[in-house]
């Protein structure tokens, strides 16, 4: 099992403030990995480091290729799709235009229609709203759009930042169900999530981040039974 993504001694900086203090982890191809942690632990920063949106030192390899010197737009071209915190929707543009933009960074230009059919199959509501400005969608629909837009890249790896944030439990359950389906089509997922119970259900591997360091890792069914995790993140 070779690593799809391998991160070693990653440090990240916002100006002079250090946000990550040597994060190391690697994830296997085909799985769902989740990063758990409290506010400010560095979860979002880890994703931003992979997408080259923040200054870092250390090593990041994707399929053996170094990412450190690439620009954000070049990372995308390797097949890493990032649905960022706050969803990154182009609110002025229509749903369809948002999805078209999602396919901008990929190498093969053809087959756009198949991709539309596929994401509309996952999220039928987006088909109904395709001519609507994305800013007029509900929060749940915008999150679906963010995932759908990321899928338009035909990614190898999907980076998801808090897909459950601010959404009704029913909507969240629906989105997580679809994430599972997407993963089964061969897309690896790296998920950052505050809702630990949900994340542990979905993921097969877990990293626990505390103040910019990985403090614990393992398969999710093992960590779910860990007392410390249960008390701190699951609340029972």
């Amino acid at each position, binding site marked *: 099992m070779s690593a799809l993504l391998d991160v070693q001694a990653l440090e990240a900086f916002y100006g002079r403030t250090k946000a990550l203090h040597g994060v190391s982890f690697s994830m296997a191809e085909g799985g769902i990995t989740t990063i758990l942690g409290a506010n400010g632990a560095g979860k979002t920063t880890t994703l931003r480091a992979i*997408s080259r*949106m923040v200054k870092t030192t250390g090593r990041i390899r994707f399929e053996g290729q170094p990412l450190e010197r690439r*620009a*954000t*737009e070049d990372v*995308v*071209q390797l097949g890493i799709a*990032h649905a*960022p915190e706050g969803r*990154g*929707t*182009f*609110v*002025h*543009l229509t749903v369809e*235009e948002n999805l*078209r*933009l*999602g396919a*901008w*960074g*990929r190498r093969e230009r053809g087959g756009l229609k198949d991709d539309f059919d596929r994401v509309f199959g996952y999220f039928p509501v987006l088909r109904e709203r395709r001519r609507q400005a994305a800013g007029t969608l509900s929060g749940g629909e915008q999150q679906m759009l963010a995932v759908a*837009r990321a899928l338009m*890249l035909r990614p190898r790896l999907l980076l998801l930042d808090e897909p459950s944030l601010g959404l009704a439990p029913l909507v969240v359950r629906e989105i997580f169900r679809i994430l599972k389906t997407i993963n089964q089509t061969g897309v690896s997922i790296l998920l950052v999530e505050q809702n630990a119970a949900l994340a542990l259900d979905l993921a097969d591997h877990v990293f626990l981040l505390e103040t910019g360091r990985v403090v614990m890792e393992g398969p999710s069914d093992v960590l779910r039974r860990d007392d410390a995790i249960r008390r701190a993140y699951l609340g029972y």
Partner: protein
Amino acid sequence: MDIFVQQVVSGLATGGIYASLALALVMIYQATDVVNFAQGELAMFATYICWSLINAGLPYWAAFLSTLGIAFVGGVVIERLVIRPVENAPILTIVMVTLGLLVICNSIAGWIWTYVQKPFPSPFPERPFKFDNIVFGAHDLGEIQVTLLVLLCIYLFFRFTPLGLAMRAAAHNPVSSRLVGIRVGCMLALGWGLAAVFGAVAGMMVAPVLTLEPNLMGGVQIYAFAAATLGGFTSPGGAVLGGFIVGVVENLVGTYVSFIGTELKFTVALAMIIVVLLVRPTGLFGTTVVKRV
């Protein structure tokens, strides 16, 4: 009544010029939050290039199209060489850079072509058109057609092509654009290129009326500012409409309000800017942009 219709049509003609330049201003403003004070001077410079090409023996439309090409490349190069290095500087720095660009363009044009006014040819027939008793200048009508054609092309480009979509995305949301793989820097450079093209169209259309000299666009740029302010600096369509409104109002006020005449017409544009800023600062079609700082 005849005079009224005539004045409205000729107002639409000059309004089209303001609209083109206002559109150029708005495009750059939307993408970079900067008002390009040099927009008019770049247009003037392009018009001189067209004049030189015609003098070198090129037919009018060949010179016109070549100038558009040169203006595009010039716009891209200026963005790369002059604006790119100060991209992340405070707004005021970038404004100063565009003001510097204004002065430089103006002086270089004066140095190369002197400050003597030069006649600039119109591609349209000399003879005016007559409908009943109403007389329309052929250049006015041609000008309106050219402007509308350019606006139509640019609308189709932004609305229906992938590149146009990517440019809109890059202007509205650079961070998300990078995340889908758009090279935002390239899009900004393309935007400067296109803006320079609109400016060049405006310059070449207004030069036969005003005659060519290095200060050709000074007044036009003020009207374009008025147009963009009126329509809204955040709305390309609004800026275009604003251009036509300013053109018509300027002409009608000059005709019917006796004490204004031609000398005080300029004041009308400035008064419009102030009134709009007082009453509706976002312009007719602009939206308030909320930014997290």
